[in-house]
C-alpha cells in the first residue's frame, strides 16, 4: 500500500444539529485508500461508519456540519463547488446502499436508471446508454439482460436489485466504489454472491472499494485493511489478517469474541457490557472507558491518540493487547 493514496480523509468530523441539541456523529476520523484496495469499515449501528461514507461526497442532509478534508484527485471534495462535485459523484466515486428496494426508484425501469448515469457523465445517446446498460447487467451476471433492462425494480428479486445497484455504480468505471452495508438486507446465500461479484469487480476493473459493514465475517472475506469505529471515532486500523489474528483494542477483541465459532461449545457468546455512549460533543476521555475492563484513571481523564503498535497497525488505546501481554 505504498502507492500514492487515491482518497485521503483527514480529520473528518460530522455534527448534526438536532432539536435535542448537537450530536457528534463522527469525531476526527482520518484514513487513506490506495488504488484497487478494499478497505473495510466495521462497527456497530450508530458508530458513524455510514455517516463517514456519506460525507465523503457530501450526501448528508443540510443539518449535518462536516469539517476536515477529503482529498481526491488533487481537490478537497468538502470544499468543491456543487457543479464539480457532481462530476465526481457517480463517475469517480460511486455508491451502493443497504436497501436495494428503496434505493432504486420504483417508477423507472432499471435500464433507464442505469442509462441515466452514463448519459449524465459520458454524454451517450439514449440508444448507446441502453446498450451500455445491457452490458453492465451482463457484467453483474443478471440472466437475460436484454429482457431485464426493461423491467421495473419490483419485478426483480432482492439479490438482483443489488446487482442492478452495482451495475449502476460501475457504469462509468469509477475509481472508488463505496458500499454501505451492501449485503445486510439480503439472504446469506445471496450475500456470498454479491461479495464474489465485488471481489471480481476489484480484480477485473481495479476499483478500490470501501466496504461498510457491521459483519466481521464479510470483512474477513474480502477486505485488505480494516478500520474499526466506535462512537464516531476510529479506534483501530490494521491489515485484515493481522486484525483477526492479533486484535489490539479491547473493543475489537470484544467484537471478535462475540462471533460464534462452529465446533466450539459455549454457554453464551461473549458480550461487551454497557452501551455505546450517546455523543453530544467530543468526549474528553477514551470513548470506550465506560465499557472497558481495563479502564483506569488515565482512560477516564485523557483521550488516547492513535498510535502504531506495529507497522500499519494503529490503535487508540492506553492498554492495547500487545502491551498488556508484555
Amino acid at each position: 500500500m505504498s502507492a500514492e493514496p487515491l482518497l485521503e480523509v483527514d480529520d473528518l468530523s460530522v455534527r448534526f444539529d438536532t432539536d435535542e441539541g448537537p450530536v457528534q456523529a463522527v469525531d476526527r476520523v482520518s484514513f487513506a485508500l490506495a488504488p484497487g484496495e478494499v478497505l473495510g469499515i466495521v462497527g456497530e449501528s450508530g458508530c458513524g461508519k455510514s455517516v463517514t461514507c456519506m460525507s465523503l461526497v457530501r450526501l448528508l442532509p443540510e443539518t449535518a456540519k462536516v469539517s476536515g478534508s477529503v482529498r481526491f484527485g488533487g481537490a478537497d471534495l468538502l470544499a468543491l463547488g456543487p457543479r464539480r462535485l457532481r462530476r465526481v459523484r457517480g463517475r469517480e466515486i460511486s455508491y451502493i446502499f443497504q436497501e436495494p428496494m428503496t434505493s432504486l426508484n420504483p417508477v423507472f425501469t432499471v435500464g433507464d436508471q442505469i442509462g441515466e448515469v452514463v448519459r449524465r457523465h459520458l454524454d451517450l445517446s439514449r440508444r448507446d446508454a441502453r446498450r451500455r446498460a445491457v452490458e453492465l447487467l451482463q457484467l453483474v451476471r443478471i440472466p437475460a439482460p436484454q429482457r431485464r433492462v426493461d423491467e421495473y425494480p419490483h419485478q426483480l428479486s432482492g439479490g438482483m436489485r443489488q446487482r442492478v445497484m452495482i451495475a449502476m455504480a460501475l457504469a462509468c468505471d469509477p475509481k472508488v466504489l463505496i458500499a454501505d452495508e451492501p449485503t445486510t438486507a439480503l439472504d446469506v446465500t445471496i450475500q456470498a454472491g454479491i461479495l464474489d461479484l465485488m471481489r471480481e469487480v476489484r480484480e477485473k476493473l481495479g476499483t478500490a472499494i470501501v466496504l461498510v459493514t457491521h459483519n466481521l465475517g464479510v470483512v474477513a472475506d474480502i477486505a485488505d485493511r480494516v478500520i474499526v469505529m466506535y462512537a464516531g471515532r476510529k479506534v483501530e486500523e490494521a491489515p485484515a489478517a493481522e486484525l483477526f489474528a492479533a486484535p489490539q483494542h479491547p473493543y475489537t477483541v470484544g467484537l471478535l469474541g462475540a462471533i460464534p465459532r462452529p465446533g466450539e461449545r459455549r454457554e453464551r457468546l461473549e458480550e461487551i457490557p454497557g452501551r455505546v455512549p450517546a455523543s453530544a460533543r467530543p468526549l474528553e476521555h477514551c470513548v470506550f472507558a465506560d465499557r472497558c475492563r481495563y479502564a483506569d484513571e488515565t482512560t477516564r481523564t485523557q483521550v488516547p491518540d492513535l498510535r502504531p503498535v506495529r507497522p500499519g497497525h494503529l490503535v487508540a488505546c492506553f492498554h492495547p493487547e500487545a502491551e498488556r501481554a508484555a
Partner: protein
Amino acid sequence: MGGFLIRKAGAALVVLVLSSIVVFLGVRAIPGNPAIALGAENRDPAVIAAVKAKYDLDKPLPVQYGHWIWLALQGDLGVDQRDLGVGRTIAQRLPISLELALLSMLVAVVVGIPAGVIAAVRRGRPSDYAATGVALVGLSVPHFWLGLMVIVWFAVDLHWLPAGGYTTLHHPLANLQHMVLPAVVIGTGLAAVLMRQMRSSILDSLGADYVRTARAKGLSEWSVICKHAFRNSLITVTTVMGLQLGGLISGIVTIEVIFGIPGFGALTIDAVNQRDYTLLQGVVLVVAAGYVIVNLLVDVVYSFLNPRIRAI
C-alpha cells in the same frame, strides 16, 4: 396491463349499474307523488292516470327501472315537464360545465403544482411560508364570497371582464372572457389543495433513498427533483386531482349560479326546484356516471405513473 384495465372497466360498470338503481329509487323516495307533481295543479283522476301511463308510473318498480335503463342505454332519458328531451337538455348544458371544470383544473394545476414543488424544495424559507400562507387563505375563503368579490373588483370597478353570463364557444374570445373569473375562483381553492398535496409528497420523496441514489449518481438538483421526486409525487397528487374533478361536477353549482352561467349545476338546481323528476333522475345519473368515468381515468393514469399497479 390490458387485464388491469378490463378489470377496472368491469368494476366501473358494476358501480354504474348500482348507482343507477340508487338514483332511480332515490328519486322515487322523495316525498310526494310524481304523477301529481307532473300533473301540476290538475287533480282530475283521469289526467293523473294518463300522466301515470305516460311516465310508466302505473307499472311495478322493477319494470319501470328496466324500461328507464333500457331507454337510457339507447341515449333516451325521457322527457321533462316541458316535454323537452332530458338527454338533449343535458347535452346542451353539460359541455358548459365541463369547460368551466377543465379551465378551473387548468388554473389549479398551473398554479398549484409548481408552487408545491417550490415550497417543498425551499422548505422553511420565505418562499415556502409565502406559498403555504397563500394556500391556507385559498382554502379558507369560501367560493361564493370570493366569487362576489371578484365580480365587484374586476367587473364592477375595473370593467375588465363581464360580471356574468355566457357566450358559446363559437366566439372563443368572448367565451373565455366570461369563463376567466369563475375558473379563477374555483381554481384558487383547487390550487391550494394541490399545492399542499404536492408540497408534502415532494418532501416525502426528497427524503427517500432513491433520491439519495440519484444524488450519488451525480445528477443535477433539477433532474433529482423534476424527474425522480416529481414523478413519484404525481402518484398521490393524481388521486387528489381525480377526487376534486369528481367533486367539481357537482361543486360547481354555486359558482354557476353566482356568475349566471347556464351550466349543469344551474340545471340541477332548476330540476330540484321544479320537482322535475325525470330531469332530476337524468341529471343525477349523469353526475354518477361522471364520477365513475373520472375514477376510471384516474386508474388509467395511475397505471402509467406507477408500474407496480400494472402488475396487480
